[in-house]
């Protein structure tokens, strides 16, 4: 039954592209909505273990795929972000044919992300990673804007180099264990005495995921891609793609294959901290709204990596929870930036100002996103950051914990300055006549804000049902 997550999007693409059925092509948008909603509902339902067992029991193909809570969190957040992207895209793309192509690419992304979550084999993990990456190259250049093309070229080169490193790591593992399945590799690596080749392949893998995630030494592509790609695509990118390709892959491999390792953990902690600092400092000095959000992503990814680097079950759960929260609030911020761009035709922060007066919904929802991103109680972002900081203290890294708390102030600083410049203060006369953004943008913003509020307020329920079961699976059993 699990194979449905990959086959249904795939066969719907095939169906809608059949040459005789061109009459049905209009229906693809509606069908994509149905698919994304179904995936949200199914992922929520699958969090209960009984249903999970029934669902995974039926096997038609020997695809070697499995599902656990970490996968479910990515499945859930990817479905939400894809849904929001589709809502935005139906409003942004006018031409019928272009919209048809765009929805097809979204379905490819869905199939790829689902495969990435379900794969339990190093090389199929790589294949699905590459499916998502190639689709995202096409999505970035969808409008054929020259800036987007240049950003995309940089991304293609860096991402392919990362893929090469990843495959090199897979090849070394193939040499050591003779297989690419997670369970076999895990046993083979545990049986080996620690040697140079294992460390080398782990280092290659971690480097590759860092490039894919845009962590600090390799963050050059990230703000450019985020700010120059079409608005709907930047929602998708910021929300899920870079997180799933980089961070989720790292978590999956640490969880299933390599296991926590003291050297890797200290490297992760250090890189995460550098990422937080440099991302936040760079975000402070940006003048472009979307670029600032890109650097803020670099900084937030740093928190997730700190959670992984703590090497404890709690830190892992916190990291997964922060991936979900980051997907929601960063999508919300990008939806709002798209709404502003669609009305004012600029994302330069010094030209904007006082937009809360003319765009009340956008202004209000972005306050929620800002509170969640800065980690202020009681919204969702606070709780995941709290989990990460607690994990750092409990695993004996008090210095990193204190630094993480102190650096939240920096996050608060750049987000406050963004709020002040864009939404509060004096309204520029040029924009006194503009109205609230179109219905689609408001709808998407309200849905995401509602998710942030609900997750924050129902925190004990969310933690007990979704997050803590994650901590008791995998290597931390």
């Amino acid at each position: 039954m699990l194979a449905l997550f990959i086959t249904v999007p795939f066969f719907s693409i095939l169906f809608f592209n059949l040459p005789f059925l061109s009459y049905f092509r209009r229906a693809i948008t509606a069908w994509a909505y149905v698919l994304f909603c179904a995936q949200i509902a199914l992922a929520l339902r699958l969090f209960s273990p009984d249903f999970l067992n029934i669902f995974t029991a039926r096997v038609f193909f020997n695809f070697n795929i499995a599902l656990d809570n970490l996968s479910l969190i990515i499945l859930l957040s990817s479905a939400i972000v894809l849904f929001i992207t589709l809502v935005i895209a139906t409003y942004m793309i006018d031409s019928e044919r272009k919209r048809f192509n765009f929805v097809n690419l979204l379905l490819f992304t869905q199939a790829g992300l689902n495969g990435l979550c379900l794969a339990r084999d190093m090389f199929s993990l790589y294949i699905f990673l590459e499916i998502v990456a190639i689709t995202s190259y096409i999505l970035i250049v969808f409008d054929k804007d020259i800036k987007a093309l240049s950003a995309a070229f940089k991304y293609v080169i860096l991402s392919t180099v990362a893929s090469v490193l990843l495959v090199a790591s897979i090849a070394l593992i193939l040499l050591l264990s003779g297989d690419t399945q997670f369970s076999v590799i895990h046993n083979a690596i545990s049986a080996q005495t620690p040697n140079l080749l294992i460390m080398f392949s782990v280092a290659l893998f971690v480097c590759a995921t860092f490039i894919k995630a845009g962590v600090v030494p390799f963050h050059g592509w990230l703000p450019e891609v985020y700010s120059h790609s079409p608005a709907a695509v930047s929602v998708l990118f910021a929300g899920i793609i870079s997180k799933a390709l980089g961070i989720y892959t790292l978590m999956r491999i640490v969880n299933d294959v390599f296991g926590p390792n003291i050297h890797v953990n200290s490297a992760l902690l250090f890189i995460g901290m550098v990422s937080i600092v440099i991302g936040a400092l760079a975000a402070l000095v940006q003048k472009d709204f979307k670029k600032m959000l890109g650097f803020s992503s670099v900084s937030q990814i740093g928190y997730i990596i700190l959670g992984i680097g703590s090497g404890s079950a709690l830190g892992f759960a916190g990291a997964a929870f922060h991936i979900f929260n980051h997907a929601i609030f960063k999508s919300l911020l990008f939806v709002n930036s798209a709404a502003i761009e669609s009305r004012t035709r600029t994302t330069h922060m010094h030209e904007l100002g006082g937009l809360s007066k003319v765009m009340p919904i956008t202004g209000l929802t972005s306050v929620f996103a800002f509170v969640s991103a800065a980690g202020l109680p009681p919204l969702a972002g606070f709780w995941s950051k709290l989990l990460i900081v607690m994990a750092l203290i409990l695993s004996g890294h008090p210095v990193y914990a204190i630094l993480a708390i102190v650096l939240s102030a920096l996050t608060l600083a750049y987000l406050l300055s963004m709020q002040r410049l864009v939404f509060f203060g004096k309204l520029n006369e040029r924009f006194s006549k503009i109205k609230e953004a179109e219905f689609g943008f408001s709808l998407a913003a309200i849905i995401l804000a509602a998710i942030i509020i609900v997750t924050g307020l129902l925190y004990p329920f969310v933690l007990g049902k979704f997050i803590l079961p994650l901590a008791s699976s995998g290597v931390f059993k």
Partner: protein
Amino acid sequence: MNLNIAILIILIMAALWTTMTRSLLRSAIGLAAMSLVLSIIMFRLNSNLAAVFELSVCAGLIPVLFVSTISLTHPLTKQEVMQHMKDRIRRFWYLPFIIVAVGIALSLVTVKLSIKLPPHEIEKNVRTLLWNERPLYLAGQIIVLLIGAFSVVILFKESGKDER
């Protein structure tokens, strides 16, 4: 063994040629030569199917792709070519020396790889492995090929329509 080393040295020389030659067209041909040599190595290492694939796709299709791209983009003027040549020589002249130095340095190092190889098992054939044990690889390849078709539609066909 010595034959393998000789073939590998030819591979490195093809790679250097690809990197350093002045004309992009010759570079693309150098890439095809690399694929050719690589597929010979694959044949020698009992990987026949992969060698055939490498020969047909990497030595056939991809250089054609590069050559058509080079011919679609505009050629340089004579003056630019001269400037370009000087630039290239300044940037690339020390690459062969680096490679030779690294090669000699690494061949002097005798690394004792104390790894435990996986237990010997009976050789499967590729068909049973791909079809029965790893159908996900095939599914992934089919999805990737479909994405390739879409990319051609979106990147090449639509841009042609805009220009007309």
